């Protein structure tokens, strides 16, 4: 199965590299969000519940924008499941002796790696915000972003497998995946928001991933607890979504 996963993963990367619009969507959009929302709101709003860390809203929003990049890559990667079905590629995979699990793993690994590559490019902007990151922090951020990209792609895969149209997937993206990000503390700290929103943020697993990255970038001492919690949750969700994907794709 390893060879099949490798071949399908290579395909994911080649397809991404050859579709320039995906680069723009996955990297350009989060960058614009960060600059326009971060720059636009930065001078207009004071953020209650944010006593330590970044000194500007642009700085606060930076980890959230990085996660938006990971989320967008996961979304675009899994839209390709629907395209694969329409283009016929999927039936070719499903009528080969390779277990469908290879497809699940390749999609999730592909989404995670591509998300990491783009998040890495965004992370390179960090010094412009006055952040001086140690090698350990950069590596820890990469691990966290990879794991987050893995399960976010798994979540996208779940919806894409169930849906038959790209338009339908956009609906899910707008009502499930984007709110997941909005209510993760990526755009505003939950401390000052309405109580129901605070609860939504607490129940949202992405909140802990975003908090882990925020802590890695902004806390003075290495945030073992926040990072460890984010990583553990991410690994748990990854395992769960691999199993769900395996079950879904094996059912003919």
């Amino acid at each position: 199965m390893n060879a099949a996963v490798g071949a399908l993963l290579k395909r994911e990367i080649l397809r991404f590299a050859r579709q320039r619009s995906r680069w723009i969507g996955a990297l350009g959009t989060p960058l614009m969000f960060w600059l326009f929302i971060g720059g636009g709101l930065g001078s207009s709003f004071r953020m209650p519940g944010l006593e330590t860390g970044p000194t500007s809203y642009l700085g606060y929003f930076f980890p959230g924008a990085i996660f938006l990049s990971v989320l967008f890559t996961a979304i675009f990667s899994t839209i390709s499941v629907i395209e694969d079905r329409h283009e016929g590629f999927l039936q070719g995979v499903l009528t080969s002796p390779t277990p469908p699990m290879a497809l699940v793993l390749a999609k999730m690994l592909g989404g995670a790696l591509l998300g990491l590559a783009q998040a890495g490019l965004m992370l390179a902007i960090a010094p412009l915000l006055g952040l001086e990151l140690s090698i350990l922090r950069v590596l820890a951020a990469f691990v966290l972003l990879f794991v987050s990209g893995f399960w976010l792609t798994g979540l996208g895969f779940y919806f894409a497998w169930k849906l038959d149209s790209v338009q339908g997937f956009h609906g899910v993206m707008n009502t499930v995946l984007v709110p997941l990000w909005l209510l993760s503390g990526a755009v505003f700290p939950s401390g000052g928001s309405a109580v129901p929103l605070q609860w939504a943020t607490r129940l949202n697993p992405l909140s802990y991933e975003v908090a882990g990255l925020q802590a890695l970038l902004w806390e003075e001492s290495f945030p073992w607890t926040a990072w460890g919690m984010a990583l553990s949750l991410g690994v748990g969700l990854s395992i769960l979504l691999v199993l769900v994907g395996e079950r879904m794709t094996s059912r003919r």
Partner: protein
Amino acid sequence: MEIGNVSGSQLALAIAVEGLGYRYPGASTDAVNEISFVIPRGCVTGILGPNGSGKSTTFRMLSTQLVPSRGEAWIDGVSVRNNPAAARASLGVTFQSPSLDPWLSVEENLEIHGRLFGLSRAEIRSRTTELLKLFGLLARRKERVRTLSGGLARRTELAKTLLSAPQILLLDEPTTGLDPAARVDFWNELRKLRSGGITIVVATHLLEEAELCDELLFFSEGKVVGHGAPDELRAAGGREVLQAEGSGALGIAEKLRPVLGMSDHLHVEPGRMRLETNEGARWFEQIRSLSTMGVDNLRWGKPTLADVYFRLTGREYR
């Protein structure tokens, strides 16, 4: 191979199907209704039937995309129900719609397919070169599939299917989208493969393609209504067919009905009459003499496969 649940005779067959049935979730009738047939090794078998006759559903069960609701099918002696992955290993499947990645090159598509079938890099390299040469694609190996014509993409598809050296090829409407010349080339390739001992099953709705098969399975309303070589099926009625089309067809049929023999079979529908008879010459002259009543087209000859289908189902092949 699974030996436990199949008989020796099934092992000698490429495909064996017994009481196979499928009902789509929520449907009130079966798409395929308890069909049984066998396909011997090394021949081209056509699965023929109009849209909705059950041939695509059968194709999907044989290619392990659907789990049968009832019955069983064996591919190379392996149950598609109990061991679909092993059954797939013997199969090469070409779908009605292409299963190539348009963003990858011809060569890259073949490479991925080879890896899915567990071939080594060296095997993939040598088989790819061999097959691309066979299909005249060697010079286009680096081109992305999205830039190829329909005919070239179809050839790429077939090369991809053959990469894993399958013993049984399942082809669903394989010439869809091909121009007539490309269709002829495609069928020439199939004949070459058959002479190499490969079993080929082609689902088609085109009668001219069915004529090129060694054996045919006629499908209608989810059932197999006829099975045999095209000539055998044509000869089974032992008759000639006369068909008159035009506004006077009904009137002519009414004039002929009282004088027809016991063995003659007349079928009338608006604008058309069809007579199966052993006295073709006699009735041809009769109808021709009545053609002033309004006959635009009069045909007399041996039964075509469309006539065979009509005899088997009582319906026009459309």
